[in-house]
């Protein structure tokens, strides 16, 4: 393979990761989104997370629907195949792609319109299946490409530039994902580098469905006084429920947190997700408590961030289907085409 190898000692060169690749190999095309768009910050964190975790770029499939968010896979990881599909239907395309090759990492990027409005049907069913993939919602509460209409995650009372006030309740995609069966659910903020990076790294180690709702202010249509998804609002109302640390299986575990206030969640690959409790009563492995905490935050007008729910050992959709180890897409003909004798037997049974 023609990938970069670790820089020989003594030679100054770019820093490489554990598989010998410099971070530039994780970058994508130049973004065409607005300067300051939260989505660009998310793309950068994705690059960092994949680089730091030493993921082979060719082992990733990027999938998206339609919208500003769904364009972003073009702006990171050019060395990975990408599928920008149709509006609200990325989950089904991702499902098919993962079934064809479950040995790869599937990374889906969607938006709040793409997920919570047009794509709600596919979103909920994907969560139910616990398909192994990372599903990121770049959530700005607004339709950008059509110039600023509310989406279904916009908060009540949120105000558009035009003065229109949203009077319908928002859909909490995290609460839904937890209830429906996703096994790693969190919310972060595009401006919170540390939290988002830790969350993404843990997501990479997880084997079921990861659902991350990342609040990502729209600088053009939804970053003003009156918007509840603006940088300012998020800085004032962001209430982390836990501080995240993630220790991949290939790194030595060091103690960063005070043991008395942390929860370690062992990931299936031996990695460790360490959550420092900011809320004493919060247990990220308890579905009921997680949903309760989210509902409570809505009542209090808070935007909770953090990892709300983790269930590392639940069988994934691939386990349930009892699939062969080798990807279905590269099964040899000898494994998929029954013999002439088999057809003969079937014919005889029909005579």
């Amino acid at each position: 393979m023609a990938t970069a190898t670790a820089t020989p000692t003594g030679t100054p060169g770019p820093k490489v990761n554990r598989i010998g690749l410099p971070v530039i190999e994780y970058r994508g095309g130049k973004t065409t989104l607005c300067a300051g768009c939260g989505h660009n910050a998310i793309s950068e964190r994705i690059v960092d997370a994949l680089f730091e975790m030493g993921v082979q770029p060719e082992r990733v499939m990027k999938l998206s629907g339609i919208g500003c968010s769904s364009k972003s896979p073009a702006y990171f990881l050019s060395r990975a195949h990408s599928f920008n599909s149709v509006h609200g239907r990325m989950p089904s395309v991702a499902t098919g792609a993962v079934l064809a090759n479950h040995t790869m990492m599937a990374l889906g990027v969607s938006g709040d319109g793409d997920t919570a409005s047009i794509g709600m049907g596919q979103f909920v069913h994907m969560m139910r299946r616990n398909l192994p993939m990372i599903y990121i919602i770049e959530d700005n509460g607004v339709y950008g490409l059509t110039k600023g209409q509310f989406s279904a995650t916009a908060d009540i009372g949120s105000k558009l530039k035009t003065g229109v006030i949203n009077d319908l309740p928002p859909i909490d995609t995290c609460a839904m994902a937890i209830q429906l069966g996703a096994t790693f659910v969190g919310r972060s903020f595009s401006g919170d580098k540390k939290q988002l990076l830790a969350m993404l790294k843990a997501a990479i180690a997880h084997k079921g469905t990861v659902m991350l709702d990342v609040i990502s202010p729209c600088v053009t249509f939804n970053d003003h006084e009156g918007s509840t998804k603006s940088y300012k609002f998020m800085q004032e109302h962001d209430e982390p429920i836990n501080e995240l640390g993630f220790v991949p299986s290939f790194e030595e575990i060091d103690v960063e947190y005070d043991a008395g206030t942390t929860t370690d969640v062992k990931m299936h690959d031996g990695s460790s997700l360490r959550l420092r409790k900011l809320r004493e009563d919060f247990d990220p492995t308890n579905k009921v408590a997680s949903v309760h905490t989210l509902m409570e935050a809505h009542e209090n007008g808070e935007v909770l961030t953090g990892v709300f729910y983790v269930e590392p050992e639940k069988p994934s959709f691939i386990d349930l289907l009892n699939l062969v180890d080798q990807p279905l897409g590269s099964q040899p003909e000898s494994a998929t085409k029954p013999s002439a004798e088999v057809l003969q037997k079937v014919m005889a049974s029909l005579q």
Partner: protein
Amino acid sequence: MATGDLALGHEQSKSAVVDARARVVNDFSIQVATVNGSGSQSANSVLLKSIFDMGVPVSGKNLFPSNIAGLPTWYTIRASKDGYVARRKRIDVLIAMNAETAREDILGLHPGSAAIYDEALNLRQYRDDVVCYPVPFDKITAAVCPEAKLRKLVRNMVYVGVAAHLLQIDMASVEAALHKQFAKKQKAMDLNMGAVRAGAEYAAEHLPKQDPFLIERMNATAGKIIIDGNSAAALGAVFAGVTVVAWYPITPSTSTIEATIDYLKKFRINAEGKATFAVVQAEDELAAIGMVLGAGWAGARSMTATSGPGISLMAEFSGLGYFAEIPGVIFDVQRTGPSTGMPTRTSQADLLSTAFLSHGDTKHVILLPGSVKECFEFGYAAFDLAERLQTPVFVLSDLDLGMNNWMSDPFDYPSKPLDRGKVLTAEDLNRLGGFARYADVDGDGIGYRTLPGTDHPKAAYFTRGSGHNSKAAYTEKPDEYVEVMERLARKFKTAQTLVPAPVLERSTGAKIGVIAFGTSDFAVNEALDELKKQHKLDVDYLRVRAYPFNDAVHEFVASHQRIYVVEQNRDAQLASLLKLDLAADQAVKLRSILHYNGLPIDAESILSELAVKEGL
């Protein structure tokens, strides 16, 4: 037939015997009228297979309501020594088991027909020109079936016994058919055979033969199989090595997937007990085709099966598949529309909407099987074509073909290796140094693709339904867009050379010709035989088997003065599609014979309309 001879009325027992001159052997149809959900399907299947076992060509059609239980349903069996398997309008032997429709059923018969019915219905009151065979079904059933809750089912086997005796079907043949039906369930076998015998014995004792309809042993079914089109298509897919199946249940396509699952479970679990396939029942048809395309993109052979409403829902994704050039196989088992239409009635009315399914300049490759054998062959070929052409391929059958049992020659094993199309490996990329996904390297309009996971830093490309250039990069440049669209048109031309060619079914140098597709074939052949017999008129016949059409279609039209396009829809969809392809002076030759009442097309309808139009 002279009706008077058989108009026996109340006095039938003393007068009627079979007149040797009136014997109708191996050429009649039976209709069984029952209630949906009463379990008559096994009995009807046994009756059909007994006739098959007698060596007589036979076909069966289930005319059922969109209902779980309680509504009327009819099953028609046609025995035809000449091998005609199309629906026949005329019913010769009625088995009336449904009190609700019995009066209507018997009133619909031609004089001289025969009716077997529950004696309580007293159908004789309605007709004195039909041979009546009243049978005390409940009494006979009770005697052979002590378990009350099974009687509703067993009762059906009693009419099998009565009919078998009256039609002179050998008991051994009935027994063989029952064996097939109940396989290893000895108890069910004994109970049902008991009911058959009791029916036959009753008929022997109490019902002297007075109608002319008889089954006599022939040798025309040796080596033949009986299968429905949906199972045949499923077999085709399984032998084509399908690995990802995503679907949403919809009549009449559901049994395609159910059969696929059965075969996959039998033949595609490997030595370690692991599945070399994945089946997902999706949340709707949009998701089903989304999964098919996702899987096709990532290298799997993927399929779905649906019917009209599902096809409508698949429109957007079909356009993506066309424009982003992703393989996938979609079986459409057509039922009547528009909208929900009549879900359990047949039609060929999805042709136009499927050909251009989706917005923009979208065109699809469609295969049109005309028999269960072609359901298997095209079910198989569709996967090769989809990967060769890198596009969704639609296989359009219909309810009649898909859900009914048909006699066929056994299917031949497709011994050629699978055609996985133009896929570049990491080694290819090392040699080439890179690739442009949508470049027309070979001049056939088909680019080269790579699969996700290909271990090469230059393997990746960006798949999108938005405007793209030959390197798969986003574009809004006029020239680059046109380049892609023209290449897609070129690819469609290439498809012409790869899809199943039309079959010249009859070629006598006649002035007039018929073009048809799919299940119309059976009725067309029978109608043209009759036309020759009755009017001494030869008509040529071309059966199209795919869209895009190839040159043979143009030549056929060019070499005839008039062309009748026979199809099962209101709007002359095949004729319309042909006219788009034909020069103006050729297109005017087309006229239509249309059938769209939800019942399978029959020869009599074609014959009478053709005769009128030709002034015969």
